[in-house]
């Protein structure tokens, strides 16, 4: 019946046509299988590309939804359904990053997953009536001199506004206020409670976490992803931070900290009792202090930056030295009796953002944004002037549309994506 194997191998097909046909058939079959494989792989590639595009679109769509539904920020974790196709899953994880929100969006389809992390802030521009200046007070005037420019929606103290002479300079403009003015209340509107609680949360978090001594660091450049655990670096007293590059998910703590202009800090948070930033420093950083913050001359702090002073004594203050460019929010929340200026902004400073100063401020710069204060102090060679503004500009109208800061007074009902972080 069956031929033994050795005989099968010994059999030879003698017909040339059949041999050639079998050979060509095999070649055609091989080509065909290669072609099929190519077609299949191409189809898979197109399908995978479509999935990837949709995952990117889902992440972008999540941002749009988060920007338009602020109450989604009330929960830390949630899942939103963007498509009718339930195999696409979109998870959102929200956590605090200082005064901003860190949002991680994970879009999944089967085994394919894409995640991105963003920094969210409040959409300040959604409030159409943001004031240029809000100066509270029952029994005081606001006196303006030189080329002082007060923009639309200025809230004035009870006695109103008047022209004045300071150091022989009179008022040069036709109108005292460039837009609408209103009467302010006797006391400053209360600061949104969430900022104080965020500061407390941050302090508690730092106290509970394990900290690493900054002297133990061997490298000068450190970058920590926001998807990793936060790196908390403790600085010894009177520590001078120089020749360091810190970026990302890093917190710096200490009692008295000096930041040299040879250091670059990007997106980090610094919490200390006293923070002194050297002149010509550049970075974007949240500086939170208990007693004193000083920004050196000609420094540049970009969005998203915050200066927060948790002032408790009458000597606590923030000093922003001349020619500094600051983009962000400045907050001095507590009214301290018998305190002098709790915020000093020197001449030539250009600021974009908002200032909340629950006390007296000395202001000689330009602010495109809002300024909340109880009053102003102006020191000159001739003496001390109370509630005088000379050659300053405070205008909320020139706050850029793309500015994203924090809502100082009310809880924000609109959020905005500040930037994509890593």
């Amino acid at each position, binding site marked *: 019946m069956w031929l033994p194997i050795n005989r099968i191998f010994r059999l030879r097909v003698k017909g040339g046509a*059949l041999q050639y046909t079998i050979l060509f058939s095999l070649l*055609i*079959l091989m080509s065909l299988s290669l072609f099929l494989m190519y077609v299949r792989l191409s189809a898979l590639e197109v399908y995978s590309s*479509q999935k990837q595009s949709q995952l990117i679109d889902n992440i*972008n769509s999540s941002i749009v939804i988060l920007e338009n539904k602020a109450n989604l920020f009330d929960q830390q974790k949630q899942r939103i359904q963007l498509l009718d196709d339930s195999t696409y899953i979109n998870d959102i994880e929200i956590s605090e990053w200082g005064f901003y929100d860190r949002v991680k969006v994970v879009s999944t389809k089967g085994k394919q997953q894409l995640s991105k992390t963003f920094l969210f802030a409040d959409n300040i521009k959604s409030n159409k009536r943001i004031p240029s200046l809000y100066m509270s007070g029952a029994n005081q005037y606001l006196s303006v001199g030189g080329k002082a420019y007060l923009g639309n929606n200025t809230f004035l103290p009870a006695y109103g506004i008047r022209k004045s002479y300071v150091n022989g300079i009179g008022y040069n403009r036709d109108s005292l206020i460039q837009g609408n003015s209103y009467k302010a209340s006797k006391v400053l509107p209360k600061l949104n409670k969430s900022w104080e609680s965020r500061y407390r949360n941050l302090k508690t978090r730092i106290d509970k976490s394990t900290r690493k001594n900054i002297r133990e660091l061997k490298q000068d450049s450190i970058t920590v992803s926001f998807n990793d655990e936060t790196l908390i670096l403790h600085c010894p007293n009177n520590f001078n931070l120089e020749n360091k590059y810190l970026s990302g998910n890093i917190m710096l703590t200490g009692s008295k900290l000096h930041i040299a202009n040879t250091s670059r800090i990007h997106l980090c948070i610094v919490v200390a009792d006293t923070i002194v930033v050297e002149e010509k420093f550049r970075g974007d950083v949240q500086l939170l202090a208990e007693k004193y913050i000083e920004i050196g001359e000609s420094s540049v702090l970009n969005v998203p930056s915050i200066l927060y002073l948790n002032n408790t004594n009458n000597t606590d203050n923030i000093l922003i030295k001349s020619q500094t460019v600051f983009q962000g929010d400045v907050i001095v929340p507590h009214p301290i009796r018998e305190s002098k200026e709790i915020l000093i902004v020197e001449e030539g400073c250009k600021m974009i953002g908002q200032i909340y100063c629950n006390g007296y401020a000395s202001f000689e710069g330009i602010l495109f944004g809002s300024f909340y204060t109880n009053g102003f102090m102006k020191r000159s060679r001739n003496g001390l002037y109370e509630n005088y503004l000379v050659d300053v500009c405070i205008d909320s109208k020139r706050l850029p549309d793309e500015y994203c800061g924090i809502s100082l007074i009310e809880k924000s009902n609109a959020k905005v994506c500040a930037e994509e972080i890593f």
Partner: protein
Amino acid sequence: MQKSALKRFFDHFKRTKLRASSIVEVIVALAICMIIFMISMSVIVNSQRSNNIRLKQKAQFILSVVNGNIQQEDTTFDNGSLRLETTFQKNDTISGVSKVSYLVFDNSSHLLGMKVIWVATDSLSNTGSVIGNNN
């Protein structure tokens, strides 16, 4: 006398015996060729029909560039070989946000690709561009 190279080459062919094939072998070989050819053709045609790789790639390209100039209403764009349908659906729960679906079909109304994005309605009326598209 030494033979030339050309002559030696022809002599070699003269000496070689060509093996002939029987008629049965030729018929069997032809049958196998025909079967293989038919199988190949059917496989190629079917794969082209079912996958439409080129059209799908075109659809993918169209979907990647439809970011701007959309109206806040359902629209259809047909270029002969592909048809792009845009459906605009306002969201009732989140104000100011709408869902835009783009569907690309071929001539026989087979779906080649789709993408769904959520857009801020205000941004559409102002600039005609869709927020959140950078792919």
